[in-house]
């Protein structure tokens, strides 16, 4: 079997130590519109998982008529199996700050806030030191933009952008109704660009090298490279930057332990791909997109336990405000328990799949909507493991 080697990339962690200065000088010498056009041209999609075109997001926010706008860096990395933002913030924080400043310059914001996951508070002293230096550097460059850091409070839901705004505003972290979208009414009701940590670093690198360098990697629908958090049954767990568009088979060949039976792509809220579909499944927007989490499971793992863990997590981390998510998560969890314990017949799984579909259609935010992903993909592909 032919195995094209994976495209390993070194954009994110490349560190020549002069990034902040050189890139910012370059950016500030150009018009904001041109910066945004570069982003659109690059095809960069949000690296948090949802995959919205970053350039468009910036353009929409720039086009809003408002004195106050915000740039928010979403560093509330809470998806189970994802740990790449931690590494980025630890290794190349100035590139994150630079990305925020570029976004601020592009959309006309004066304030940027980095919302840091509470569990990453060990990074705070270092980040704050670097942030202060960076803010001084911005002043010296006469860019009216200041970055601040807010520490999260420990809820998974606060990684959802509108819940994150609520949290920064001092309220209970609960997603808002959309529309309006953040580009129109985000933090404190002002037009806001909210980007994932990794997205902002790519913004920096696209500004540094131009969009063409970025387009060298990936496919038409999934441009560029992506940082993957690889965990589970693999001898090579860790963080890797890879070109998008590889098949799951290629990925497993590189990272599997020879006995991989399933890969959970995109964390607990992502899709489970079984061995029989490894060859036909592309990792990217044309196949299964991911915010970076890749969990490998070998034949020693019970997929019932895997699903049970995920549902347990969602039942607890649902904010609880909307019915489909709050009650649905509990029903799915208790439901597979009941099937396992023979309190319900295997047919009951069909009820639960319909419920998962209802959650996908009617939950208020991405959390409730995406619980169907792991549920249906695991139940469909590992039905016998759920029942027996």
């Amino acid at each position, binding site marked *: 079997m032919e195995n094209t080697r994976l495209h390993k990339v070194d954009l994110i962690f490349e560190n020549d130590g002069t990034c902040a200065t050189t890139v910012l000088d370059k950016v500030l010498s150009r018009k904001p519109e041109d910066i945004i056009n570069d982003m659109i041209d690059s095809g960069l999609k949000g690296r948090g998982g949802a995959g919205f075109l970053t350039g468009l997001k910036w353009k929409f926010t720039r086009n809003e008529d408002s004195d106050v706008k915000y740039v928010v860096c979403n560093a509330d990395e809470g998806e189970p199996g994802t740990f790449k933002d931690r590494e980025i913030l630890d290794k190349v924080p100035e590139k994150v700050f630079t990305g925020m400043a570029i976004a601020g310059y592009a959309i006309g914001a004066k304030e940027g806030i980095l919302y840091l996951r509470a569990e990453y508070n060990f990074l705070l002293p270092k980040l704050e030191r670097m942030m202060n230096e960076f803010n001084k550097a911005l002043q010296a460059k006469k860019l009216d933009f200041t970055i601040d850091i807010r520490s999260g409070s420990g809820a998974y839901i606060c990684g959802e952008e509108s819940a994150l705004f609520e949290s920064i505003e001092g309220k209970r972290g609960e997603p808002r109704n959309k529309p309006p979208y953040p580009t129109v009414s985000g933090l404190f009701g002002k037009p806001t660009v909210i980007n994932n940590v990794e997205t902002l670093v790519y913004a920096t690198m696209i500004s540094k090298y131009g969009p063409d360098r970025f387009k060298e990697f990936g496919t038409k629908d999934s441009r560029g490279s992506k940082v993957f958090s690889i965990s589970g049954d693999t001898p090579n767990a860790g963080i890797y930057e890879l070109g998008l568009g590889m098949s799951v088979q290629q990925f497993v060949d590189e990272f599997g332990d020879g006995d991989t039976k399933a890969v959970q792509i995109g964390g607990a809220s992502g899709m489970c791909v079984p061995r029989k579909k490894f060859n036909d499944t592309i990792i990217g927007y044309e196949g299964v997109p991911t915010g970076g989490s890749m969990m490998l499971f070998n034949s020693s793992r019970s997929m019932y336990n895997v699903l049970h863990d995920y549902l347990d997590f969602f039942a607890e981390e649902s*904010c*609880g*405000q909307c019915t489909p998510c709050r009650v649905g998560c509990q*029903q799915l969890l208790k439901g597979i328990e009941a099937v396992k314990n023979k309190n319900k017949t295997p047919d009951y799984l069909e*009820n639960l799949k319909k419920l998962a579909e209802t959650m996908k259609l009617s939950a*208020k935010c991405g959390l409730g909507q995406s619980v169907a992903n792991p549920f249906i993909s695991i139940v469909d592909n590992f039905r016998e493991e759920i029942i027996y």
Partner: protein
Amino acid sequence: MAKYEVNLKINDIPVSVEEGSTILDAAKKLNFRVPTLCHHPDLCVAGNCRVCVVEQKGARALAAACATPVSEGMEIFTNSAKVRTARKNIIELLLSEHNSECTNCYKNGKCELQELAHEYRVNENNYLKLILNKGYTIDDLSPAIIKDDSKCIRCQRCVRTCAELQHVSALAVGYKGDHQKITTFFEKPMHSVVCTNCGQCINRCPTGALIEKNYIDQVWDCINDPNLHVVVQTAPAVRVGLGEDLGLDTGHRVTGKMVAAMKRIGFDSVLDTDFTADLTIMEEGTELLTRLKKVLVEQDTNTALPMMTSCSPGWIKFIEHKFPKLLDNLSTCKSPQQMFGSLAKTYFAQKKGLKADKVVSVSIMPCTAKKFEANRPEMRASGYQDVDYVLTTRELAMMIRQAGVDFNELPDEKYDSIMGESTGAAVIFGATGGVMEAALRTAYEIVTGREVPFQNLDIVPVRGFEGIKEAKVQITGVKPEWSFLEGAELSCAIAHGLTNANTLMKAVSEGKVSYHFIEIMACPGGCLGGGGQPIPTNEDIRRKRMEAIYDEDTHMEIRKSHENPEVIAIYEEFLGHPNSHKAHELLHTHYHPRKNY
């Protein structure tokens, strides 16, 4: 900026609505009913329950009709297969975490979830019953409100009511996920937090999670006890709301039928809170004039102005919690309910030759805070608890049904005497601005000897549903004993709903406004929108009740409190004069600062 029209289609029928409208508004315009649970016209949009989901052509997910603004060219389907399945599932999910022992529930037959379950023919057994493992307890320690989490569907109407309409936030969302619930500060029971007992949350709770504590059985027991004389009083706003719970249209005045029904139920004396509303005007009007004299003539710095009304027990508890420094500004007058209570076991008992300990005093109120008020330790001026049981309008309707009385066929009957006579001034106590209007009708006439200079005695500037109203009355041609008021301009303000009250009190305490007299009612619209009134409530319903109240006023023979013959008589025979020593003993009270949490 002018609003433009947005064109869209709902179920293939074109419709245009103002920009900013929701899909729900547009559907309503076409008479398509989209079911809702968390949505309430008095409150901000939540989009929580998801029962109102509709299908939008081209969109992957369904949209919450209540929370999604319309956009040009939108095509919406309110009843597609996808929608119906999702909606049914959602109702089933709600039932799975709901204590659905409906026959044991106070709201049985009046529950929005029950109605929807019926309408969608849901199968409750589709999902596991989650409620069984939640270990909920019922908080029934408050004399006014019972909170039963096992019936809560987390629509957060109560939370929004408490925060938006009342600025109290006694209720809030706590925890997340499967543990999420509506709770209080440190999960303390309702009676030991800032809850004002206003009952507005009850009026908006779609299920039986928040209900009034009911005393129907206790009252029946008293009625059935031949040794007891049960006196009942009915508040002004009850007569314009009661009909709604007995099959009549909103805004029906049912005073005569209500009296007839209560006589058939077996109350021994059917009397009127309006009598003590008139008495309140005498006491409060005199107090206001005395305060004005002390401040303006005697330069007394210990007398507080503006004077504020004290009829609304929800408002009283609110100010005790939130603005304890302003307690001296409150009129010392008890509410009409409590004045009535203390007189029922003194004056009334004496006149009727009854022993006070054999008189049971029951009041019918549009209010739940009155249940709390009756239990305040200060309210025992007669030597007994002045008011024994407080029933809401809803509870009275329930008693009338239990008694098997065909309400609609009843003749109009008159209140018993004494303490059954009232005036138009007393009736309008039930609407926001009414106490102010009644007080002005009397105070102006006391001071000048002439009627208030408003056509037909209708002081229009103090009426209506604007949150905070202001009125100024120029006083000229005064009688000699009131010469210090000659040329003065009496400046008044009125607020209803505690959020408006809070705004006004902030302005008062910061010295940004200066008034002589302020009327506050805790509930939106005043007592007619009280927490004990029939459910549902919305501005349209409240407006119809208000119109009925002013209609009742117009139809009264006597429209000024000081002309109520029974009021004149009680001063001659029993109290002496307004603010007399005896009046102070029986009709006035004092207040206590409370903590702000």
